[in-house]
């Protein structure tokens, strides 16, 4: 019997049974969490925006730090009086952190301080090219290094009891690379439609990669990718690929129109090349993220590809995949039924992580 076991152990290890044990998925629905009406609603959003959300945002702290190469990085902090934990918020590509004022207010109401960072080259952060509309990054790793700088120079100085991360889309891609490089920086990570593989839209993948890599190889990749251009006001809600909430879509349009400094256009070839390289790294990095992670997947996403998210979550020992049925890409900017359900899962997940960390 012992001999049989001695033979079986290495075989089982080879078969993958030697992987780190996975925790049982958290039954989020069964956990206590924010009740009905805990989050803002579309019906009263415009009124609430002017009466409480924007004043709370304006009362927060705005600041600038130096990122890689001296690029100025804008951040915004909304502190709770006696915070349960600090939530670092990373937006997606093109999104200024100011767009997340509503999310910040909702998290603040749940007792969390929020530290939001504008990625380099977008929002109120510095640009790397003379044409400020161009979506460009020299090295995708710079986003990761910038996040670490933000943690060091701003967030950790407040000595939060617990540190959590909420990231959307490209911010999610940055987050998983950061988690692989600096494991244990956060007590829990929530990812909303993370960019772990990108859709090339109407262009077949081989054509898109041929165009991008040729441009990056032959020059500096600073030209707009085919089909991209300067910022243009979004006027087509009906065909929006990111949300089904008209009021949240309109708030975003109004924010960008009122703040030209936050406007961003399409992507450059260099950004595409760097993103292709980054998502490949990101997909290989699941096993290096031991932190409890909630991955919200938008069921109707056409911007990032869901297959890669599922694969990442299968590899990351602490990852839990949670599909938001009917949601387009921007889950946290969706209509109430979808957004509030997703936000409820995030808050329950964070509450649980804070409670768990407190017991250790």
């Amino acid at each position, binding site marked *: 019997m012992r001999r049989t076991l001695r033979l079986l152990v290495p075989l089982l290890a080879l078969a993958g049974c030697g992987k780190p044990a996975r925790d049982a998925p958290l039954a989020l629905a069964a956990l206590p969490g924010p009740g009905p009406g805990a989050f803002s609603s579309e019906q009263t959003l415009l009124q609430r925006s002017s009466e409480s959300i924007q004043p709370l945002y304006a009362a927060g702290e705005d600041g600038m730090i130096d990122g890689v190469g001296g690029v100025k990085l804008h951040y915004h902090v909304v502190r709770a009086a006696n915070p349960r934990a600090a939530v670092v918020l990373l937006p997606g590509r093109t999104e200024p952190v100011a767009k997340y004022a509503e999310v910040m207010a909702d998290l603040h109401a749940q007792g969390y301080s929020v530290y939001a960072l504008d990625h380099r080259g977008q929002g109120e952060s510095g640009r790397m090219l003379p044409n400020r509309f161009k979506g460009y990054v020299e090295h995708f790793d710079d986003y990761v290094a910038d996040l670490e700088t933000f943690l060091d120079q701003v967030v950790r100085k407040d000595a939060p009891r617990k540190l959590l991360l909420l990231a959307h889309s490209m911010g999610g891609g940055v987050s998983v690379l950061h988690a692989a490089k600096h494991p244990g920086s956060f007590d829990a990570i929530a990812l909303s439609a993370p960019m772990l593989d990108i859709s090339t839209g109407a262009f077949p993948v081989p054509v898109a990669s041929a165009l991008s890599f040729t441009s990056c190889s032959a020059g500096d990749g600073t030209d707009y990718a085919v089909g991209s251009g300067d910022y243009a006001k979004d006027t087509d809600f009906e065909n929006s690929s990111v949300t089904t909430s008209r009021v949240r879509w309109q708030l975003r349009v109004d924010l960008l129109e009122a703040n030209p400094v936050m406007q961003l256009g399409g992507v450059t070839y260099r950004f595409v090349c760097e993103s292709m390289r980054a998502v490949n790294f990101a*997909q290989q990095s699941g096993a290096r993220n031991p932190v409890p992670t909630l991955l919200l997947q938008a069921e109707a996403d056409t911007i990032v590809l869901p297959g890669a998210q599922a694969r990442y979550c299968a590899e990351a020992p602490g990852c839990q995949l949670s599909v938001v049925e009917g949601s387009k890409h921007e889950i946290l900017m969706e209509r109430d039924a979808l957004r509030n359900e997703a936000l409820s899962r995030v808050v329950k997940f964070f509450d649980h992580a804070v409670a768990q960390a407190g017991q250790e």
Partner: protein
Amino acid sequence: MRTALLLALLAAPLASAEEGQPATAEPGTRLYAGAKVGLVHVAGLTAVASRFEAGRQAWDLDLLWEPSAYLQSYSVGGAWHPLGGALYVGPRVRWLQFRAPWGRSFAAEDNHLGLSGEVGGRWLLGEGRKGMLSVSGGPTWVPTQAGTLQWMLGFSVGFAWGVAER
């Protein structure tokens, strides 16, 4: 004019096959050295060993370095000339690097295996047919998880000169 030139080049291997030329002009093996331009890899340096049988192009083995700070490739390619002329098909095994080792941000994960299928022509030109004009294209499969990297289309034009033969 360009169309006519292209047609003439394409017809050349068929014509040479029909005429059964050249009977004894070629050595058994000739080594060519040259350069190429194209996409996805913009430029490359190559060495091609061509094997002739009964004076006709039969087999090639080449080494190709396509240097770039962004997506460079080291590769070994094989080619079979089924008609005994310029046209060939063959496989290519690549060692791809997203970032050159001398560039910032190079990481071990930047190294990828790539498998290419190639179709093209290698036309022998000039005195003693020592010049070699090549045109080739084909897909490369990179067995990565990221869908956007799995397939790439490439195309190149090159010229090489015979530097040794036996």
